[in-house]
């Protein structure tokens, strides 16, 4: 193992954190939906993939400018979440969790296949106004795309936290996720809350898509691996906690980058799953153990 220069260290750090933020954003979707409905939506990564293709089509196919692309993609994804919830998920209420799990895994396959049919399997490029030469600080060169990922993730999380903590509807989302029956008894429209939670989760996947698209070429499988890593992030974070999802994502991003640098590329990928196994052995309740507390 070579010793590592400061510049390389900082670059790995930024890359790790920015990838981690992406995993964290997709993991936020997992956790939001899980808390609201006790369902695990395995298609969350593929929903992000859909968002990336929507952004690509709006920009390259229809020629929209960047800002309208961002707004329209997020709106489309929110609408997609509401449609998905009412058409596919709501009819599954009361079915065993295993059936729901299979449904969302199947949904992922369908989304990948449909994306392949519409957009083909060759890789697409998505450029942004900030896809410019990297920022140079001394010997450190930082991609603006990565810095934007980190900045947007921070803003989005602050916004989400403020919404859930301080607005009446946000607190109602928390209440419904903690006790649906009691929420209904105080007059919270639980069904609408669940639909809006899905919209929130898919809109966040849309934001993740807009952030990942300029970093990577777009193809139908782009969401699959991200989805798995985000799922690991959610487990590492404790699955019941939004902050945990983000922290879990960043942990995974960092481990992946540093292990990948110190050994060979493939070890970086593998290290994510090793981390998952370690977590399950040492601290199965996750870094932030809300599920444990929920049982009390």
């Amino acid at each position: 193992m070579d010793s590592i220069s400061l510049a390389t260290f900082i670059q790995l750090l930024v890359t790790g954190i920015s990838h981690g933020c992406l995993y964290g954003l997709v993991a936020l979707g997992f956790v939001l939906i899980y808390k609201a409905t006790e369902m695990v939506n395995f298609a969350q990564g593929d929903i992000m993939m859909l968002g990336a293709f929507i952004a690509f089509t709006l920009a390259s196919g229809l020629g929209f400018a960047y800002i309208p692309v961002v707004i329209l993609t997020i709106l489309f994804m929110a609408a997609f979440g509401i449609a998905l919830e009412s058409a596919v998920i709501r009819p599954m209420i009361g079915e065993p969790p295993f059936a729901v799990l299979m449904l969302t895994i199947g949904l992922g396959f369908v989304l990948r296949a449909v994306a392949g049919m519409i957009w083909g399997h060759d890789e697409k490029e998505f450029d942004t106004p900030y896809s410019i030469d990297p920022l140079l600080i001394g010997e450190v060169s930082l991609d603006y795309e990565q810095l934007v990922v980190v900045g947007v993730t921070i803003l989005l999380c602050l916004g989400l936290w403020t919404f859930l903590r301080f607005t009446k509807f946000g607190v109602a989302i928390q209440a419904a996720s903690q006790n649906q029956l009691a929420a209904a008894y105080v007059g919270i429209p639980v069904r609408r809350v669940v639909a809006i939670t899905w919209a929130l989760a898919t809109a966040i996947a849309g934001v993740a898509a807009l952030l990942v698209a300029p970093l990577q070429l777009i193809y139908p499988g782009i969401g699959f691996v991200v989805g798995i890593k985000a799922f690991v992030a959610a487990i590492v974070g404790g699955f019941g906690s939004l902050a945990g999802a983000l922290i879990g994502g960043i942990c995974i991003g960092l481990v992946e980058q540093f292990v990948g640098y110190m050994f060979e590329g493939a070890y970086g990928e593998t290290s994510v799953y090793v981390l998952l196994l370690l977590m399950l052995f040492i601290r199965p309740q996750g870094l932030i153990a809300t599920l444990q507390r929920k049982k009390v």
Partner: protein
Amino acid sequence: MALLEVRNVESYYGPILAIRGVSIDVEEGTIVTLLGANGAGKTTVLKTISGALEPQKGTVAFDGDNVTALEPDNIASLGVGHVPEGREVFPFLSTEDNLKMGAFTRAAGDLEGDLDTVYGYFPQLREHRKLAAGFLSGGQQQMLAIGRALMLKPKVMLLDEPSLGLSPRLVQEIGDIVVRLNEEQNVTVLLVEQNAKMALGIASYGYIMESGRVVMEDTTERLAESTDVQEFYLGMKSGGARGRRRWKKRKTWR
């Protein structure tokens, strides 16, 4: 016409029949109690009133309107405050956020004033208003569940075994509060209890359920005098040898 009228309702859990032919009237301004042993169907009656369970047969009318097919949140917004069995507070929300959620159906209005009203009845809740509700004691959680329903400004409050698991002193305290809410806040009350002593003490009229049906109804005075109620719900022995032969005794309503 009574404020709340339950007519011949029949409700199921999947294929399981839980209540059958249940009719209950709650007159405006009164406290009515619904008594019965565990599994008699009391909670099911309340769930059917609140819209958490849709009855297969029968109707529920509230304030003159048929509310049988409505969603729970719609029924709540009409002024039905449900204090569920086992408190069911929002464990990770603060005490005060729990109370604020109680006012969810109402336009902003005078939230602070209403919080003050609730804290007036339950000073302990004010002390712990920043604490996550999951950390409150059982008695405090019961107070919170009642306070949360009060924030709805309910016309009728459905209380499901508020005395469950509480010390006799706390049971007394909760009973006193229910009477005060009835008198001072004009809340009509349907009180479900296994603890007949407190319930018969504060209610004016009572129903007794067994195996999913109402088997007896009368003023609470007369219910308290009935030997069956004394024996099976107030734990009084009829004395001497008869007490020991109790297992053989058939209740008169059978």
